[in-house]
């Protein structure tokens, strides 16, 4: 019988981990469907905004705080989480509430990653409980910090395998006055990636570049954000700069909604099949789609992030062969979720897991071996 534990303080969390006799599956909002074997350890009881200083662009929250609560608090001050985290619920058909701790633990970033950075770039500090039940802090709540090793980065994307986050501090940014998206119609994948490279290789500070394939109905989206006049100016400049790629261009009527669809991969919500997320250099994106044989594809990050929907059970990694990047299985089963690491890197990762969780009880088997 597995049981569910919901500590209401960091001390209690440490006690539970320290006393654990078997494996624990760490749960934030449970929206990712990443559960492994073992008793469920939920961070739901560790919730609340501890400090928010709009003038310092920083927020400190307990790990189980719902993302929605933070979004609302930030919106009141016209600020936001600039890494644009994806909401996985539609894609995975899960319920629950995404939590702040999971955003960091899984380094969840969306379209703006190419310009603003990933969750790991906005994480300023963490508190966590390691596999022995020891409470550890690293980083802090200031924007620049090189005091000792950066365990904040190590914890970002460690998916609960090195420790259970109890608190995270994040840098936030002002919301822009407005945004607009230039839509270039009818480009094939290769020209779309070239067009996105041209947009990002311009001085216009593009904050999103995605391509939804579809022959003549395909659309390539270029986003800019800022003050009204500046956005209008940049859209016109980009229109001129991209004229050589396609004559048919328009400006999106609802830029915000269009990017929410890219962020949450709405195009795959209804479709059956496994969902993969492949990170490569942008110019390699079109070839990934070709060799994947996938039924549906979506390019984000100017081509560097390829979302693929494949037949259930497809060994995508075997199809792609060796790639300079990584493929993560986001929906589906039968394959390892994370990309196998090179021997040298795997030895280091394993060594770190061994040191932070010597008993191998935290989300055991989720990453590496």
């Amino acid at each position, binding site marked *: 019988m597995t049981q569910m534990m919901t500590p209401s303080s960091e001390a209690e969390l440490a006690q539970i981990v320290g006393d654990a006799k078997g494996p624990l599956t760490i749960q934030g909002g449970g929206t990712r469907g990443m559960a492994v074997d073992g008793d469920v350890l939920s961070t739901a009881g560790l919730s609340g905004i501890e400090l928010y*200083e709009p*003038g*310092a*662009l920083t927020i400190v929250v307990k790990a189980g705080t719902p993302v929605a609560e933070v979004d609302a608090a930030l919106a009141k001050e016209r600020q936001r989480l600039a890494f644009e985290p994806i909401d996985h619920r539609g894609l995975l058909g899960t319920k629950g509430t995404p939590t702040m701790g999971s955003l960091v633990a899984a*380094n969840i970033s969306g379209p703006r*990653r190419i310009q603003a*950075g*990933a969750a*790991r*770039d906005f994480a300023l500090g963490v508190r966590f409980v*390691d596999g022995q039940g*020891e409470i550890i*802090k*690293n980083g*802090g*709540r*200031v924007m*620049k*910090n*090189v*005091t*000792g*090793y*950066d*365990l*904040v*980065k*190590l914890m*970002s*994307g*460690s998916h609960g395998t090195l420790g259970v986050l109890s608190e995270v501090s994040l840098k936030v940014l*002002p919301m*822009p006055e407005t945004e607009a998206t230039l839509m270039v119609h009818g480009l094939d994948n290769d020209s779309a990636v070239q067009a996105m*490279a041209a947009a*990002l*290789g*311009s*001085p216009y*500070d593009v904050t999103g570049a995605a391509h939804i394939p579809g022959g003549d109905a395909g659309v390539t989206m270029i986003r800019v954000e800022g*003050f009204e*006049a*500046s956005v209008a*100016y940049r859209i016109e400049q980009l229109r001129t700069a991209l004229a050589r790629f396609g004559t048919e261009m328009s400006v999106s009527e609802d830029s915000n909604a269009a990017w929410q669809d890219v962020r949450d991969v709405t195009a795959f919500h209804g479709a059956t099949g496994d969902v993969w997320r492949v*990170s490569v*250099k*942008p*110019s390699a994106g079109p070839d990934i789609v070709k060799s994947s044989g996938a039924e549906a594809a979506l390019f984000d990050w100017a081509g*560097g992030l390829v979302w693929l929907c494949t037949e259930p059970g497809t060994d995508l990694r075997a199809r792609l062969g060796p790639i*300079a990047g990584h*493929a993560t299985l986001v929906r589906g089963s039968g394959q390892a979720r*994370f*990309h196998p*690491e090179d021997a*040298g*890197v795997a030895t*280091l990762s394993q*060594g770190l*897991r061994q*040191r*932070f969780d010597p008993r191998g009880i935290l989300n055991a088997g989720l990453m590496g071996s």
Partner: protein
Amino acid sequence: MEMPVPSKTVIARKSRVVERLMEVLPADRVIHDPMETRAYECDALTAYRCPPMAAVLPETTREVSDVLRICHQEGVPVVPRGSGTSLAGGALPTADCVILGVARMNDVLETNYPDRYVRVQTGRTNLSVTGAVEEDGFFYAPDPSSQLACAIAGNIAMNSGGAHCLKYGVTTNNLMGVTMVKMDGSVVTIGGAHLDAGGLDLLGLICGSEGQLGVVTEATLRILHKPEGARPVLVGFDDNEVAGACVSDIIKAGVLPVAIEFMDRLCIETTENFAKAGYPDCNALLIIEVEGSEAEIDDQLSRIVEIAKRHDPVEIRESKSAEESAKIWLGRKSAFGAIGQISDYMCLDGTIPVSSLPMVLRRIGELSEQFGLQVGNVFHAGDGNMHPLILFDANKEGDLELCEDMGAEILKLCVDAGGCLTGEHGVGIEKRDLMGYQYAPADLEAQMAVKDVFDPQWLLNAAKVFPLASSQERRADAIAAE
């Protein structure tokens, strides 16, 4: 500053080690004559010096691997070195160490504009990375003031920042991949031209690890297209604290400048005498820079000026041309040099929440009076990264110690205010013994566990970052293993 006692056994082995190193490197790139090793006796923290046992200058990853394998087998400590501009003593040798300098490794290996990255050998200087791509309109964003001299190797090891990091981030936010040689000579490649790690974020861990986890030989760096233009506005104030409050208001207002720099009276007057930038006569000034087209710049500057006007400025000087911009930046850029002309100084690097700027500036003023040492403040105000410069006289008995004591008080103040000991210069030896003020023993233990994984014998730059007492057992193991 205490350093570990050098190992007699290792020093006794010098000739054999040198001989073996000469088997893998040409003789002129193995420096062992005590007259010549002196060139490596310190970095920019010149108060501390110690010539190494030997220094080597490899040119390829392969050579770095050969050197490390030999040192590993012989139990010889290694201190990696870029350009030696560390202000924290990060590249300070021990008498029993081999300095591994990457200065000869400065090639550009690949330039890719469509995917916006360059791959370089890490001995290349920061400025010459931008130099390699600027004709095509691109640049590498992190811009430490030492950028003419410092190497990408040191930037990665210290996770260096610069004036424009407010918008573009520091080194770790612009580093995409590295080739690194571990102490045992094995080579690992981490990251690359793609974004984010497929597994654990080892790249994020290596950046800022002060040369303790491996020797980084190659780096993939994100490059960006240059903005259409950039111009600053200079705002003078009667009062430090008011200037601090103005910074907070600008940030809250949603205008995000690329840089907000602060200078106090001592720095203003000293640089004025030195560089004659024509700064106003005032107690504090801010230099705020924005980017974009001419019209975009005008618009943003006018928003900033409007906010500044609410804080009783004594002068507002909006740059209208490249010439005026250069003049505004001239003083800020010469600040360290100017202070260096009038006095010895120690440059601190504590970082605080921007909201605490007024309080911390006031407390620093009080400490200055209490210790009887002058302090100048010149720093990156937008992200709270302070640089108090404590003036002292190196020739006066006890003055360095007094200065260090005062420095420690200021850094503790930064920690108490919710900040940290160092925002961009690193811990090195300088802040090593204060680590216990910011971190509990368990926090330090977790960091040292990371080093155990990468360098189990603790041979790489082991006397840095961690208080000697807390790393004692691990380093003792290194010697016992000989």
